[in-house]
């Protein structure tokens, strides 16, 4: 479904060359659920932007559902759904329902099909209470659910999410996670998401891509990732160690358990 081969992207910032992504190769099969981890500035968003055709790669090759994103951006847009946690794809001043209706027209979804899908999404994402509210008045959790609905109305084969749980409270986070897991299981939608929240990873994904300084540092299952750093059981500690060692900082000794409390794993 997604094929990246030696993918690279450089930015020139005031005569300096920044390798945001370099030599990245991976393959995602249809129906997989993959999380992309990595410290801030690792190159996750840049990768997503290349997958969706927003940015053209400066080296390497990428195919999403058989298409070259940068060349066939609009054709690809019909087949994928994209969610940006940091910004909305909805129209700020329009009520959520109008935003979704506008998406229906832009994506040329049949009216009847649209109604059925919207009904389903309304139930699963609990949109009913705020369908007529202008998007700018929605809470972050409501807005994110609206955004996810908008990305799925044209029933894409691939769903790409850049930090979909950023800033959400625990309840909203759980709702979003549950929904994504069901979508993946019941519709077979391929999902690729980036996140800083390890809870997302533990609850959702069999497979993790760890990106660091623009390159692939790890590609495998969660258990393999745990096994990578001996002596650490919580995924949080493992990732902290990996991030620190990539910065060149020494490993921190494990903290002693909090007296009387439960330590470590969530």
């Amino acid at each position, binding site marked *: 479904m997604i094929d990246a081969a030696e993918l690279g992207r450089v930015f020139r910032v005031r005569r300096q060359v920044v390798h945001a992504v370099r030599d990245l190769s991976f393959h995602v099969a249809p129906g997989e659920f993959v999380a992309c981890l990595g410290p801030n500035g690792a190159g996750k968003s840049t990768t997503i*932007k290349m997958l969706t055709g*927003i*940015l053209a790669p400066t080296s390497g090759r990428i195919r999403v559902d058989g298409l070259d994103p940068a060349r066939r951006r609009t054709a690809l847009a019909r087949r994928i759904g*994209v969610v940006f946690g940091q910004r*909305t794809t909805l129209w700020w001043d329009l009520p959520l329902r109008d935003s979704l209706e*506008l998406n229906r027209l832009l994506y040329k979804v049949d009216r009847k099909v649209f109604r059925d899908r919207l009904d389903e999404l309304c139930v699963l994402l609990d949109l009913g209470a705020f369908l007529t509210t202008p998007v700018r008045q929605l809470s972050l959790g409501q807005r994110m659910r609206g955004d996810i609905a908008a990305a799925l109305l044209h029933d894409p084969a691939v769903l790409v999410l850049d930090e979909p749980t950023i800033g959400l409270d625990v309840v909203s986070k759980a709702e979003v996670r549950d929904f994504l897991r069901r979508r993946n299981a019941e519709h077979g939608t391929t999902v690729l998401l980036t996140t800083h929240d390890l809870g997302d990873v533990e609850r959702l994904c069999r497979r993790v891509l760890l990106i660091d300084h623009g390159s692939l540092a790890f590609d495998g299952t969660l258990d393999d990732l745990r096994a990578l750093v001996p002596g650490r059981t919580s995924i949080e500690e493992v990732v902290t160690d990996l991030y620190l060692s990539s910065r060149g900082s020494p490993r921190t000794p494990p903290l002693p358990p909090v007296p009387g409390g439960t330590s470590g794993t969530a």
Partner: protein
Amino acid sequence: MIRTYALLVWAWTRAAAQYRVSFALMAAGAFVIGGLDIAVIWVIFANTDSLAGFGPAEVMFLYGTSELAFATSDMLFGNVDRISQHIKAGTLDVMLVRPVATWAQVAADRFGPHRIGRVVMAAAVLGVALARLDIPLGRAWMVPVMVVSGIVIFTSMFTLGGALQFLLTDAPEVANAFTYGGAMLNQYPLSVYDPRIVQGLTYVLPLAFVNWRPGLYVLDRPDPLGLPSWTGLLSPAAALALAAVAALAWRAGIRRYRSTGS
């Protein structure tokens, strides 16, 4: 592209229609702003009978044709020059992942129907000028042609200005010199300017084809540069050529778009 544009414009119009009073006030404001230019022309002709060889009715005719084209273009597509705001805010990323033309999305974004006020003012000025000038039908047919060509030329200028902002994201105001500057330029007979400027506006950046060259034809006036009067009929060709250049520049801009690091 037209369908996308119409859909988005309709959505924004409906959103604006919720605030009727605000819309009426803003439309009135746009009408008054359009009137300021006329007030300036009035002050000029309160002091003289002719400006660079042209009388008040002729200047109003030149002003009216250019301003009608510019105000219409500005209302319909002028938001293309807000592209730097979309680049900085990251909203361009969102537009790029939709399966429709980016240009139409940017042009329609925040469509402000209140700008009709300025169009109405321009149309009124042109109407008054035409009533005073008594132009024979044999040449008057060119007036709608020049207005439509002018809309295409100004829209191309907005698009070129937008494309430039992919390079100069931090200095979008440079584009204003070409878009609003182009409009200001054509408000007066080009005979007020240095002939070299007029040559540049004929052969390089064809702004002289908005109203000056076709206007000379309609007014049956000789060309100070000595070009034959039928060159005034070339406005549609000039408009299409500029539109083609603008389309290429826009594509080049999108291709070299580099998003923003978050």
